[in-house]
């Protein structure tokens, strides 16, 4: 018993010192962590701010309505933002139905088994394949084997494959969030599986699916490497034929096969020129790109917040 009470004052001092040392280490780490976080965040904010500063002088209405030019001061992003819009249209039309269909199958239809396992492993793996590899696939498959050439269609399909895993994973999460009582209620009323999916699951998980689609699209908008690989031109001083026209047949699909450029490629082209005047254009194009992706992501975050607030199962 007595040994507990007989801790020498010297030993107590030692222990206090030890405790103090450990507390000091604790506080040191808190500071190190804060500093690391600030370095990462501030480096990025500073870079974005200087990008805005560099490109500000070129962000005029003419910048959006001019074709690229050999003179930096006249060059604009008309052909590239039109190209981006058309490519995104194809991407969305291809990736959204395919991704949602795949997710519905995996979440609602798939039976436990080897085929399902293989599909699941492939979806996970595809998400980890570097984007430029999709470009090589598209170069071999779309451009040459299917003969689509270096067209809007080939680019849109390439990006659709690239964002497919994103759409599948987020749609599955949205479907999983619908409680199984909803499914059981639909079945109890005699609904078939597809009736249950199309009348109940899809409407209820709409918001979550939309969030995933927007995040996927915002990734596709900034992708450069796979589009360069399929041979998108970097200097386009004309627009693809318009998809809609005033005279019959009103809608045409020539634009699908037109050569094109997109915003990130235009920016890449300007960055890699030695003339510093073009760097200003690149900065301005970069600002446009960042604003576009931030708006899309901001909208997705807002949507997610709204869903969380309104839906209470």
């Amino acid at each position, binding site marked *: 018993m007595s040994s507990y009470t007989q801790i020498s004052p010297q030993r107590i001092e030692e222990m206090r010192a030890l405790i103090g040392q450990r507390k000091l280490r604790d506080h040191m780490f808190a500071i190190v962590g804060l500093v690391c976080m600030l370095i990462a965040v501030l480096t990025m904010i500073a870079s974005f701010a200087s990008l805005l500063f560099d490109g500000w002088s070129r962000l005029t209405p003419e910048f959006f309505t001019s074709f690229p030019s050999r003179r930096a001061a006249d060059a604009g992003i008309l052909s590239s933002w039109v190209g981006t819009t058309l490519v995104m249209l194809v991407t969305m039309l291809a990736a959204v139905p395919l991704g949602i269909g795949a997710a519905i199958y995996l979440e609602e239809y798939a039976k436990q088994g080897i085929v399902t396992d293989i599909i699941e492993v492939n979806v996970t793996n595809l998400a980890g394949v570097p984007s430029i*590899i999709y470009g090589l696939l598209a170069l071999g498959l779309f451009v040459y084997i299917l003969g689509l050439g270096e067209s809007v269609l080939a680019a849109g399909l390439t990006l659709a494959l690239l964002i497919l895993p994103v759409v599948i994973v987020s749609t599955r999460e949205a479907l999983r969030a619908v409680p199984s009582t909803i499914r059981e209620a639909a079945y109890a009323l005699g609904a078939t599986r597809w009736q249950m999916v199309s009348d109940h699951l899809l409407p209820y998980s709409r918001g979550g699916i939309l969030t995933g689609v927007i995040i996927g699209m915002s990734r596709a908008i900034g992708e450069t490497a796979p589009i360069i*690989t399929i041979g998108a031109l970097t200097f386009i001083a004309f627009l693809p034929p318009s998809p809609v026209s005033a005279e019959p047949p009103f809608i045409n699909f020539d634009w699908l096969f037109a050569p094109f450029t997109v915003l990130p490629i235009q920016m890449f082209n300007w960055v890699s020129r030695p003339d510093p005047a073009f760097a200003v254009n690149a900065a301005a194009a970069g600002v446009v790109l960042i604003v576009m992706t931030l708006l899309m992501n901001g909208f997705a975050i807002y949507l997610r917040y709204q869903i969380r607030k309104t839906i209470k199962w």
Partner: protein
Amino acid sequence: MANAFEGRLAHKFTRNIKERVIESILFLMAFSAVAITVAILAILVVESLGFFEHVSIFEFLTGTVWSPLFADAHYGILPLLAGTLTVAAVALAVAIPMGTIIAIYLSEFAPHKVRETVKPFLELLESVPTVVFGYFALLYFTPFLQIFMPGLPGFNMLAPGIVIGVFIIPYISSVAEDAMRAVPMAMREGSYAMGATRFQTAIRVVTPAAISGIVAAYVLAVSRAIGETMVVAIAAGLQPKFTFNPMEPAATITAYIVQVSLGDVEHGSVAYQSIFAAGLVLVVMTLALNVFGHVMRKRYREIY
């Protein structure tokens, strides 16, 4: 009466057929994921086989000169591999310590408000187009580094490596933080009850418990770093050079593919096939990493 019954049967029959058709279509959609993987491997392997008819595998794997676009063409992958590994090493030297510290800080130290503000911001960084980061590397980071290292050339592997490192920090911090937050509170409380500080708890209790998630985050970061294309293509110069010195300009596998795609390379030529051979090396590397990550996750997963 019998008619109505038969009508119902017919309705049920068509309904069942419709269900079957829909299920088959949905299955095909899901199976497209497998088809894409097979297509990627098939295209890469077929074109690479064409490439290896002209170039011996031995030269490809051991040659130290890569010059497919010159008259005196050499096809040794080692310079591209060295560039890829050097850039990835620089990136990871930045991202792994910073990402891990930020993850520990956000999960164990940061007040709720800080975490809820910083996390979405870091996740927004993931969506910024990488071509913009290429601009940063070439026009902001290289001049900045040249202040301290006057001998640094305008194109080098250091600046793109650092920039890639900074923008993959969110991949590490966000996945690792999720893994740490998944560690049950009771384990932390047990550690605090024994008199441990937050730092001791974070290092000796939470980190070991979350190690499989943290390793998964590292694997994700490595595969992003070796697959990153635009930053390197813009800021590292495009000359393949067999060097591991980050102060020198060099080309990576991805940058080489971009360089060839930008020029006029004839379909079916050896240079055309060479980008598929290079791509195959890249895919094998990322696949090996993914498998490694999967094994690590299985082996060290702690279930509570």
